[in-house]
Structures are given as C-alpha cells and as structure tokens.
C-alpha cells in the first residue's frame, strides 16, 4: 500500500483546522451577540460575523501554530512513523516531509500579513460603525419610550422614525409608531375643537365693551386721525347695534379718509412687493445674507412666480450655503453611522508649517457623520485659552457642518427665522467669519482622535506611519502610534517563526500511537489553541519588553532596526531547528 505524504497530511490538517477555527469563532461570535443583546435585530448577525472574523485574524498565530503542532505531532501518517522506527537510516529524511510545508508557511505568512495589516483595520472600522448604529438605535428607542411615557407624542414619533431608519423591520416598533400616529391625529382633532370656543371667547371679550364705550373709542381715534382704528371700532358698534347712526357716520367718514389718499388695491400690492424686494436686495448687498434669505423665502410663498423673487431667493440660498446650513440637512444624519467623542487640539496649521497660535484650542465633536452631502457634526464644544490661562473662547453648538475647512455652526430653519441653532458663547463671541472655526487638522485623521483606545487598531500600517506627526499635533502621544507600529511589524515575522518552530516542536514531540489515537485525544484538541495562545502571549510580551526598552531609552528607529535584526536571527534559528529534526 502506498504511503501517503506527511506533507499532504499536514496541509490537509492545517486547512481543516483553519476552517474549523473560523467556523467555530463565527458561530461563537454570532451566538454571543444574539444572547448578549449587544446589537439590535437587523445588526446582530452582521456584528457577530465581523466579530468572528476579527477574532480569527487576531488569533491566527496561535491557530496556525496549533494546526502545525497537530499536523506534525498527531496527524502525520502512522505508516511513515513505522518506517522511521524500522531502524536508523531506514526512514525518510525529515526535510523531505517538510519542504512543501515550508513553502506553504511562506505563502500563508503573506496572506496573514495582508489580513493583519489591511483587512483587520477595515473590519475594526466596520465594527465601530455597527456599534455606533447599535448605540444610536438603542438611544433613539429609549428616548422614544421616554417621550411616549411623558405624552410628548411628536417627540416619540420623531425618535421612532430615527430608530426605524436603522432597523426598518422591527415590527414591534412599527406597531408602536402606527399607534403614535393615530394618537397624534386624534389629539390634533381634539385641539382644533378646543380652539373654537377660545376664538368665540375673544369676540365675546371684544364685545364686552358697551356700544357707548366702543363709540367713544371710535370718536377718539377719529380725532387722532387714526382712521384704521376708528373704522374698526365703529364697525364693532354697528355689529352690535346696526341702527347706531353715530357709528355709521364715523365709519363713513373714516372710510372716506382711508380711500381718499390710499392708492388702489393693485397699486398697493405692487408697492408692497417692490418695497419688500428692495429690502431683501439691500440686505443681500449689505452682506446680511440670512435676513435676505428669509425675506425672499417669505415673498416666494406669496409671489411664487415673481422672477425677481425666484432669482434673489436662489442667490441668497447660494450665499447661505457658504456660511450656514439647514437643520433639515442635519436631522437625518442622526441615524447614519458616525464617530463619537472626537477630541483634538486645533492649534497647528494644516500645511505642515506647524505655526502654532498664541493659545490652545480644544475641539470636541460629540458625533461626526460623513454623508455624500458633506460632513456634519452633532454636539460641538470649542474651548480656546491663552498661554496665561485666560479663557478666550468657550462655545457650544448643537450642529455643525464642514464648509471649506471650517466648522460652520450656523444652523438655520428653512422657513422659520426664529427657529435657528446658533452657538452659545460662554466666553468670547463670533470671530471674523461669524459662527465658523477653522479646522487645522486633516479631516481624514479626525476619526482617530478620540478616547477610544481601539481607534489605533483601526489604522492600517501605512496610516500608522503617515499619521505620526499629525497625531502629535492633535494632542495625542506619538509613542502610542510608534509602539503600535513596531508591534504591527512584529506579527507577520512572529507568524513565520512560530509556524516553523511549531513544525519542529510538533515533530520532536509527536504522538506515539501506532494506530488511530484514542477518541479522548480528539476531545482534548480544542484545549490546545488556548495553551498555545498563552505561550505566544509570553513570546509577544518578551518582544514588547525588549523593543519598548530600546524605544524609550534610544529611539524608534533603533527599535525598528533591532526588531528586523532580531526576527532575522529568530528565523535562522527556527530554520536550523527545523533542519536539525531527524526521523530516526
């Protein structure tokens, strides 16, 4: 019977073990996500799958090492073992078994390098996005329930809508929203009915005066040449007593006066429109863009076909977009994925000249959402203090938008000028550019400037290298980035060295079963990756101490050179150990 190649067995074992590990980790992650209630329904499976992939790549070194150990210590072909025991020189040479495996290990190291340095940060980012959505959804649901409890139906409806934009298939919430819509409709009907008696009461109140009193008032207004009021009070008297001749006389005289010098109705309308347009145009020319916008917006509702109104409304809207944005642009972004807690120093200039301002400016962005329409911020706080500790500026703004490298905090309601969201200044006030603050950090780096320690893990290796200077300028410790870079470089080398050593160790300590190993042995296999993981943790920590020591006492560059040199030495040792294995 032909003897199967141990290298073939090793490869089959390796791929089977990697596949089983991946499946186990995916199932474990999906189940823990489902049980743990960490994600809303529509996100649960996705979060679980990404978690599983993350765990798999993060633990690929112990998994791969275990697979190699198993392949060469337990699952090699027993007939080969018999041949090796036939006597010195009768077995096949070990390098014959292992040469193909070494090539495979090199290929797998390349795959691991790609997964670890490029795919893992992407998965981390995706997970962050999903976690953000999950947190937002839970917060919206909680706010909606609170609002519902407090009978704030509009608020509850708003938050249920936001929640459903993330999880549109949640039947329970869909039913709740439908119920709220119904309640709002009933409430609106009731409030309309309630308002009727109030209007009646007002008329009654007006009519609370006696005809004599109202007539007296009409006479007084006539004397003061206030013909509008005189006509109004005279009309009220006539409504109560149509036969009152004095009231009739006042009404006629007042009307004569009014019609005597007022232009015709069409003239009035044209004049009013002209004056209103002139007012808007003047505001636009004086740079009062917001006043101009609301003026033309209001006119467009009364004169939607007026060419001037259309033209100037468009012009004011264009200018507005440079200095402000609308609330209805921001609201939908609440339910979009974003990043929380971005905090950075906004002092350094972006062109790399690093000309620091006289003081220090700290910017806090509670939520940042990137959309095709622009980058929006929710909950902005900016603090600026001088070198002598004086507070120069402290503002909070509910919303902001990135406009030409400025954080624009002038948020307007599309039609209601009273309903605007301007920053509140606890210290200082608007600067030369109004409610706008120049952003002196690269926008693409902002997601990494937050208290979440995992944010470093979301950077690819090239990003880690490029961001070093900006990271420091943003007020973060450069040593964190550089140490992470060293450890990130270490892992692919470790993968290669550990895999080679695992082959040697597995072979040197191979099982002495002549037939199939007992069933109990297979039961023990799942324990192995945990044990191997502990040993690898020790190895990584030893590297961390050595590299950290060089890093803090000498420099990052020396640590990097030492890392490469040390890995080269370890690689040579692992190859020598492998070459030294014997089959006898």
């Amino acid at each position, binding site marked *: 019977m032909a003897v199967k190649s141990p290298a073939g067995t090793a490869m089959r074992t390796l791929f089977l073990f990697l596949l089983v590990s991946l499946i186990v980790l995916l199932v474990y992650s999906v189940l823990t996500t489902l049980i743990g209630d960490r994600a809303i329904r529509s996100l649960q499976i996705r979060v679980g799958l990404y978690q599983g992939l993350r765990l798999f790549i993060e633990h690929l070194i112990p998994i791969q090492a275990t697979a190699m*150990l198993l392949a060469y*210590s*337990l699952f090699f072909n027993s007939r080969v073992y018999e041949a090796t025991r036939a006597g010195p020189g009768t077995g096949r040479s070990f390098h014959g078994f292992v040469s193909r495996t070494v090539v495979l290990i090199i290929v797998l190291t390349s795959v691991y390098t790609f997964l670890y340095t490029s795919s893992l940060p992407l998965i981390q980012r995706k997970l962050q996005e999903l976690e953000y959505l999950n947190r937002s959804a839970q917060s919206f649901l909680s706010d909606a329930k609170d609002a519902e409890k407090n009978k704030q139906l509009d608020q509850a409806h708003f938050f249920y809508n936001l929640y459903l934009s993330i999880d549109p298939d949640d039947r329970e919430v869909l039913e709740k929203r439908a119920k709220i819509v119904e309640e709002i409709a009933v409430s609106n009907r009731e409030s309309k009915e309630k308002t009727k008696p109030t209007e009646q009461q007002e008329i009654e109140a007006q009519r609370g005066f006696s005809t004599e009193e109202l007539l007296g008032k009409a006479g007084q207004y006539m004397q003061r040449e206030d013909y509008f009021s005189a006509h109004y009070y005279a009309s009220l008297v006539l409504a109560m007593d149509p036969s009152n001749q004095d009231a009739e006389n006042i009404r006629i005289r007042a009307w004569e006066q009014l019609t005597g010098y007022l232009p015709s109705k069409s003239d009035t309308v044209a004049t009013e429109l002209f004056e209103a347009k002139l007012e808007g145009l003047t505001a636009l020319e004086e740079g009062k863009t917001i006043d101009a916008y609301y003026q033309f917006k209001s006119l467009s509702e009364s004169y939607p076909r007026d060419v001037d109104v259309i033209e100037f409304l468009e012009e004011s809207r264009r200018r507005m977009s440079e200095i402000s944005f609308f609330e209805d642009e921001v609201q939908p972004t609440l339910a979009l994925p974003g990043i929380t*807690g971005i*905090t950075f*120093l906004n002092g350094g200039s972006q062109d790399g000249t690093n000309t620091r301002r006289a003081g*220090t400016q*700290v910017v*806090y962005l*509670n939520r940042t959402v990137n959309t095709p329409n622009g980058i929006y911020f929710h909950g902005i*706080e900016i*603090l600026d*203090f001088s070198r002598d*500790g*004086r*507070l120069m500026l*402290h503002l*909070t703004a509910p919303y902001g938008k990135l406009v030409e490298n400025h954080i624009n905090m002038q948020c307007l309601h599309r039609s209601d000028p009273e309903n605007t969201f301007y920053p509140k200044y606890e210290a200082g006030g608007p600067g030369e550019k109004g409610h706008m603050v120049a952003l002196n950090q690269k926008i693409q780096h902002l997601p990494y400037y937050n*208290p979440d*320690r995992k944010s470093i893990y979301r950077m690819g290796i090239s990003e880690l290298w490029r961001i070093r200077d900006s990271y420091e300028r943003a*007020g*973060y*410790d450069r*040593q*964190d980035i550089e*140490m992470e870079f060293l450890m990130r470089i270490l892992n692919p080398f470790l993968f290669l060295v550990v895999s080679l050593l695992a082959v040697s*160790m*597995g072979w040197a*300590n*191979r*099982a*002495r*079963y*002549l037939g199939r*190993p007992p069933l*109990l*042995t297979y039961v*023990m296999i799942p*324990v*192995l990756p945990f*044990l*191997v*993981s*502990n*040993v690898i*943790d*020790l190895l*990584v*920590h*030893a590297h*961390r*101490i*050595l590299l*950290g*020591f060089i*890093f*803090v*006492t000498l420099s990052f560059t020396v640590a990097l050179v030492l890392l490469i040199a040390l890995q080269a030495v370890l690689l040579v040792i692992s190859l020598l150990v492998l070459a030294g294995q014997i089959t006898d």
Partner: protein
Amino acid sequence: MGLVRKSLILPLLYLFNFLIVVILIAGLDLLYRIGIAPAEQGVAVINMIPYSVKQVLPAACISALLFTFLRMVKKPGSHLLSLLLLMTTASAVLIFSEIGVSLIEREQPARTLNASNVLKPGVFHVYGEGLLYVEEIEGDSLERVVNVRQKIQYLPRTEARLTGNTIAIDMSLHSEPALEFPAITIRERIFRPVISLGWFLRDYAILTDDLSTLLEQRGWEFYLLCVSLIFFVLGTNMWMRITRWPLFNFLLVVLIIRGVFFLYAYVRLNLANELGKLFEGSILAKNLPSFGLLLLGLLFILAEALFVPYDRLSKDGGE
C-alpha cells in the same frame, strides 16, 4: 546508559536550565524595570539586578524543572532517585538563591511618583471614557487643565494628588468630586501586557511577595512554601506521561501550573484570610496555600506510582 547515571545527570541538567532561564527572564525583567523608571530619576542598574533576579526565581525554578521533565520523559532513569535528586536540587536552589539574593539585595528606593510621571504635558491622557489634557506640569501642580467627558471642563490651574496607585485631580472649581484614575506612568503604558498575561503576572506576583515576606520573617514557613512548591511541580511530572502524545502532555503541565498559580492567589487572598479569622493562630490556616501545594503534589505522585508507568514514553521502554 545506566538508570542511576541517567538520574544523576538530571540535577546538572536542571542547574543548567535554571541558569539559562534566570539569565533570560531576569534580563527581560531588568530591561522592563529600567524601561519604566522615570527618565529624570536615573537608574542604578547594579542595584536593580538582585531585585530582578529575586522576582524571577520561582518562575525560573519551575521552568527549569519543566524543561528537565522533557528529558526525564525520554530518558527516565530511576524513578525514586530522579525525584529525590530533583527535589533536593530544586528546593536547595530556590531556598539558597532566595536567601543569597536577599543578602546582596539593596533596598529599592520607594517609588516616588508625581503628576509629571503619569501625565505628559501637551498630550491628551486617556482615562476610562474621558480625556485629560494638561499644558504644563510642575511636580504636582497642573496648569491649564482640560477635562473632556461628554463636555469640556477647563481649569486654569489645579493640583494632583498621588496616593498609592491612584492619581486624583482636584476639580473643585466645577463643584465636582476629584477626577481619579490609576496612576500608570507614561512609560508603563508601553510595557503593558495583554489582559490574560496580566492576570498571570498578578497571580505570580502574589507568590513572589509571599516568599519575600516569609523570608524576611525568617520562619520555617518560608522553607515550607519553597519545598511545597517544588514538591508540587515535581508531582506534575505524572502528567508528562498521561497520554502517548508528549506535546499535549507538556502543554497540559503548563496549564496545570498556571491553574495552580491562580488557585494559590485565590486561596491566599480569600480562603486563607477567612480561615485565619476563624482559627486564629492555627498553623494550617496560616499556611493553607503551602499545605495545599504539598497535598496536591502528594496526590499526583501517588497517582503516578499507581497508574502511570514511569518509562511509558521513554525511547527504551513503553510501547
């Protein structure tokens, strides 16, 4: 090679393993201690060497025994003689090296930290879910302090207090309690191990602290703990031959020893104190971890004698 000769080689091999392991681990520990020392305080490396060696002695003794087990599996020699020789050698090495190092060890200066060791000026310090920014630090005096946690708080100046392993920043200007977080120095952050290893190092530190304390007391408890520890590790030799798969057996022994460190820490921190209160002055309660190790070691050795052939996986014996 005769059985006796194989057994006689074991103590020498153990000593060799011990030396290699001590040099390696103590070297790393020394680098760690120099690395975390505040840059401005300077480091007396010579003074640190005995301290580092002392910290790693139990780990080196145990690791050297494990590596010796690998040879015992292949070339077992005489069972009883091997056990007796290793027991004597390893116990003597642990006891005398602990005593010897403590004699030459100079008292380490107490760790005197101030805010500038924990916080870096001009850099955000991450604590929990918040960030603390201090622009200038002089001793414990902080200038231009910004605390960011959902909102920004600003203090033109304030003071930091370091008590034990905690730093507290006075936030009274904002009528809020002091901001408190663990005082991990800037350099310590670089050397921080992964969580699972951190747990192991914590458990291990409890054992080394116990050894140091008992040694200072100059009582017989110190010898009891050293002997118990070695006796227990020797007992785990049984597991090196529990299956016909040496690699698995070795990793199993590593797991058992890791488990015992955890158990030791648990018993020491919880059960021993409770029992000490119940049975005041009781020797058993006071030395519960040591007696526990002895008992476990005894059980393993008995099981080995009864159920696991000593030459099961040897090149000459077994199947």
